[in-house]
């Protein structure tokens, strides 16, 4: 049944208006949904923003959330995806003590096996970056924590769908035709 709780990624295309994030977040709040990750950035289309939100809920609730989001005047289109419908990544940054990782002798091997790389290095600390899923960034965190991770941050998840084209393009073309 629809009561099955699953992970959903909601991709929201909006006009670039002040307060739009509040409006979007309000709808998640009304349904008592926890936002696991959130990303807001400019889309490929000038003036249109994309908000990507990951949450756990039922199909019934996510459909309702999508409709209520689309009802907002400044929201254009909203799509919801299961993990299998999308390719998604997050970025993680790790700050570790330089002395300790050099002393370990196997840092290069470790980073290679995690497909991570050093983006800044000084006498005091080293910053490592990794792109991956939450599971993958978490695994690297656990490995690096043997040296004592001084600071760790991960970004919100970003997503592309497995469909061929950006779904917004169709919408915009249709709306422009409507205007005429």
């Amino acid at each position, binding site marked *: 049944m629809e009561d099955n709780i699953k992970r959903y990624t909601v991709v929201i295309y909006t006009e670039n208006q002040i*307060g739009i994030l509040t409006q979007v977040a*309000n709808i998640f709040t009304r349904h008592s949904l926890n936002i696991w990750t959130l990303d807001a950035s400019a889309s490929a289309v000038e003036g249109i923003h994309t908000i990507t939100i990951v949450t756990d809920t039922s199909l019934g609730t996510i459909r309702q959330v999508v409709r209520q989001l689309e*009802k907002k005047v400044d929201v254009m289109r909203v799509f919801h995806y299961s993990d299998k419908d999308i390719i998604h990544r997050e970025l993680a940054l790790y700050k570790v003590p330089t002395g300790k990782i050099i002393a370990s002798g196997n840092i290069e091997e470790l980073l290679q096996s995690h497909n991570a790389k050093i983006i800044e290095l000084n006498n005091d600390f080293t910053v490592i970056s990794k792109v991956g899923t939450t599971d993958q960034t978490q695994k690297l965190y656990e490995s690096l924590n043997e040296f004592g991770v001084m600071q760790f941050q991960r970004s919100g998840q970003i997503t592309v769908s497995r469909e061929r084209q950006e779904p917004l393009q169709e919408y915009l073309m249709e709306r422009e035709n409507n205007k005429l």
Partner: protein
Amino acid sequence: MDKDTKDNQVTGAEALLLSLAEEGVDTIFGYPGGQVMAVYDRIPDHSDSLRHVLVRHEQGAIHAAQGYARVKGTPGVVLVTSGPGATNVITGVADAMADSTPVVVITGQVPASSLGTDAFQEADIIGLTSPISKWNYQIRRAEDVAWAVARAFHIAATGRPGPVVLDFTKDAQVGLTDFHYEKCSFIRSYIPENEVREEVLDRAAAMIDASEKPLVVFGHGVIISGAERELAEFLEKGDIPAASTLLGISALPSDFSLYEGMIGMHGNIAPNIKTNECDLLIAVGMRFDNRVTGKISSYAKQAKIIHIDIDAAEIGKIVPVDIAVNSDAGKALRALTDRISPAKRTAWLDSFRECRKIEQEKVIDPETRPVSGAIKMGEVVEMVSQVTDGKAIVVTDVGQNQMMAARYSRFRNSRSLITSGGLGTMGFGLPAAIGAKIAAPDRAVCVFSGDGGIQMTIEELGVVMQERTGVKIVILNNNWLGNVRQWQEMFFGGRYSATRMVNPDYMMIAAAYGIASETVECREELRGAVERMFADDNARILVVHVEEEGNVMPMIPPGESVDRIMLSETQWYGE
């Protein structure tokens, strides 16, 4: 800036009033204050085409605008100051959102440079109204005024209507701008209504033709769409019985042969019972509010469901549907009437008779035609209907007065029951009636209020006095918060907590405002008092001492299914 340029330019405040004129606004309900003075300063220059109604509390302004909008079908306009002025309209914004009422609220705001500094009378009205408005926008530059107002009116009135809030900073009010007005008819991110595919309509029509026992339940969407005639034609061609939600009342004349009354908690027995007996439920412009459905897990489970609604977010929200028609009610009904076959469903229609008979005997007659005992609330409503011949606009407050007015008022014309449905806002009645009367000065407007609700916005009697608004105010006085008392009696073991009211002398209050009033305490005085009230063109207050512990019946208790109906505190329908 040279002189010529300056002469071609106007202030943001002036641009606002010019924009309102472009939208055909003839009335503003408002209250001045520090951060909206620049706008108020321009109002006298527009007084030949724009009436400003000075309310006594900002909540009164928005309820009056709602009453005005519901009667006229065009947006009501509210103008208030920042901070407390703006927060005082919030209840009405939420109410207008719940009841799909087009309202444009303009709030003053501190200068843009002071935003976020906790300046005097600064409140984050954009943040506060975001979840309860259809759209809001902060105007921070005079040159944005025309654009924002055009957009506001387009959004408020199209699709599923609703409240829009424009927060107008002081510097934008006094700043200079060129003024060009262009009405808004297109917003790329906003699709007010969808085209329905022919195939969906064909399937719906086939489902209706195949149905032996269809039932139409319709709501406010029919009135908003102006689809009253389309509904009647559809029902007549299909010979389909129909019942209304609280907000759909008056879309069909009360004596329309296929009209079966109101559905829901205090609705009529027949349509509630038949909801769980029909084989097809056709919902038109309604949203399956829980006061309509009762226990959802046993609501119309045997029936196929067609849901016609302009708001896609309402379809499938509460009740899973077989066919979704995401469309304006009028367009959908026209298309369906064209497609369905003429039918006679005599046996099905006859089956409603038994329920009707029982309700008439057990509930309606004792409530509206008692011969002894205290005056009943329903009896007063019945008397008003008789005296006005069903032609009045009936406004209600919230509670027992509202249910009685909805159950026992008779209507000949649409847009004639104005009530706070979704939010259930006590205090709505009096100011909404003022707005309704201003919108329809030639019609009788009668508000039914309880002794509780009237005192929530009683200050608006000042508007009745100042504007000489000829509203008829009926206070059904039982010295209780009646609806809550009824629930305490029925569901909380009769423990009356905070529901007893010690009331003022309403006639003295009326006298203080210069409003004629009467008090009726016995049955014999009722007709004469009601007749005198409607014979007078001026405002009148009629205080009726009604049965103290009267209950609204029938009742589907909260959490019960629509076919579990109480006829009295001790008797269930069918037992």
